[in-house]
């Protein structure tokens, strides 16, 4: 796995260390780090000064577990003050082990229970379209083990059948699904008509390429492979 185009800014890493202290980062937190950075640094049309802009892109973190990387990216990009990072899940903290959209600017959905983000993402994409807002794109990040939840497959089938092109799913694949995905995760989406890209989830240029190769008439999935959770 190449790290050739992986440059994590010192500011981002400082935010992450501030959040996690001396503890080792949970693998779940780190598995998303590079994808999240590429999204917020290169892809998403979002403005921390206007987090409620109706024409912003939407990023939905469905896999709400291990949100340290998410919080670090949001703080680095200025969605909330960095000193919020110092008291993770404390009694007065807005940052918990699962994010709450009602507590954290820039967080689009409250997540934690797995398998809710894709359905909310489908509804968000439909709601924007129904209001004539064609500019925003909706991104939903899920984990490969999270895909075990059947609710995801309701959303995958529906979005594919209706050609919901303003929706992109990003699957962080650290091979943590207990029974695996025979034939590969991308095939699970492709069979329902999604376009697919498989990328190195540590290679920033590759991640960006995968996100940008979508087609105008179908939903898109980017499977970002990172090191296995259990190895």
């Amino acid at each position, binding site marked *: 796995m190449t790290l050739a185009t992986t440059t994590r800014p010192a500011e981002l890493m400082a935010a992450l260390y501030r959040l996690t202290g001396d503890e080792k980062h949970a693998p779940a937190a780190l598995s998303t780090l590079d994808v999240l950075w590429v999204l917020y640094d290169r892809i998403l049309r979002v403005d921390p000064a206007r987090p409620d802009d109706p024409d912003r892109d939407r990023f939905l973190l469905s896999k709400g577990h291990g949100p340290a990387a998410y919080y670090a990216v949001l703080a680095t990009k200025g969605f909330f003050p960095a000193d919020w990072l110092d008291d993770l899940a404390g009694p007065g903290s807005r940052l918990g082990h699962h994010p709450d959209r009602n507590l954290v600017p820039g967080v689009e959905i409250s997540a934690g229970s797995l398998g809710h983000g894709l*359905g909310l993402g489908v509804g968000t994409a439909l709601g924007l379209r*129904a209001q004539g807002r064609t500019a925003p794109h909706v991104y939903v990040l899920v984990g490969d083990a999270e895909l075990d939840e059947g609710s995801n497959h309701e959303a995958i089938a529906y979005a594919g059948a209706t050609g919901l092109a303003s929706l992109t799913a990003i699957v962080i694949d650290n091979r943590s699904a207990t029974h695996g995905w025979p034939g590969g995760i991308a095939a699970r989406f492709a069979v329902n008509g999604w376009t697919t890209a498989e990328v190195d989830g540590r290679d920033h240029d590759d991640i960006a390429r995968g996100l940008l190769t979508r087609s105008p008439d179908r939903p898109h999935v980017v499977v970002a492979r990172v090191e296995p959770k259990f190895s």
Partner: protein
Amino acid sequence: MRETFIDTTTALLDDDPRTAVVLADISVDGFAPAVRRHPDRVVNVGIREQLMLGVAGGLALTGLRPYVHSYAPFLIDRAYEQIKLDLDHQGVGAVLVSIGGSYDASAEGRTHQSPGDVALIDTLNGGWTVHVPGHPDEAAVLLRTAARHDDPVYARLSGRANADAYPDAGTLRVLRRGARATVVAVGPMLDPVLAATRGLDVTVAYTHTPRPFDAAGLRAIAGDRVVLVEPYLAGTSARLVAAALSDVPHRLLSLGVGRAEVRRYGSPADHDRWHGLDPASLRSRIGGFVNG
């Protein structure tokens, strides 16, 4: 009342650009004209109730007002976690509109029945309004009113109806006055209660909106004996009566659908009898309580 729902919501789609409808194959035929006029705001996800509620949450997050519809057991029981998380926890609302109620679908068996739906809604954030209209004309008014705000609403539409509509019965409306007890009838239980209490010296009060429960109204009319007659699980509103009368000595008889699964088909009227909710059973139970 399903037709009332379809007609009212179709008109809302025409008049209010915020209105959206989310379906999971149930009642799709009725919305066919609306789909043609508003293809982006009438969404049929197929037989996918988790997605139906997730989509509703997403629509609400973008500022629309989703009406979400199926049989009560699929809309509420099956998708309960989506109601809890995709609406409540996100801090958004929707209008959930069920049909079937406790046992309108008596011949279909337990899978199509939801006597526990209002009790499940009661586990949520407390901001829910629950409508149990007793007449289609009430349902039309309530569904239109729900379009004007973003709070969570559950409308439980039954195939059973009272003879008269009382659209203003959002709080307890006294229909008959008496001295021995106050009988509170919810939604379609009104006509059976009126029949059962004919000649009894009791107050009969009616509401089509048990949530928020009209505690002040009950305090104003209740004596020391209260009978609650609800078309869903017996005792669902008992804690609210107890809270309303917490500083007043009183006795409460809670009538409604029993918890035991009867494992019989038959008609809704048969189930009324088996659950003691037909006029003859009600008269016996209320009479015994009043005179006991």
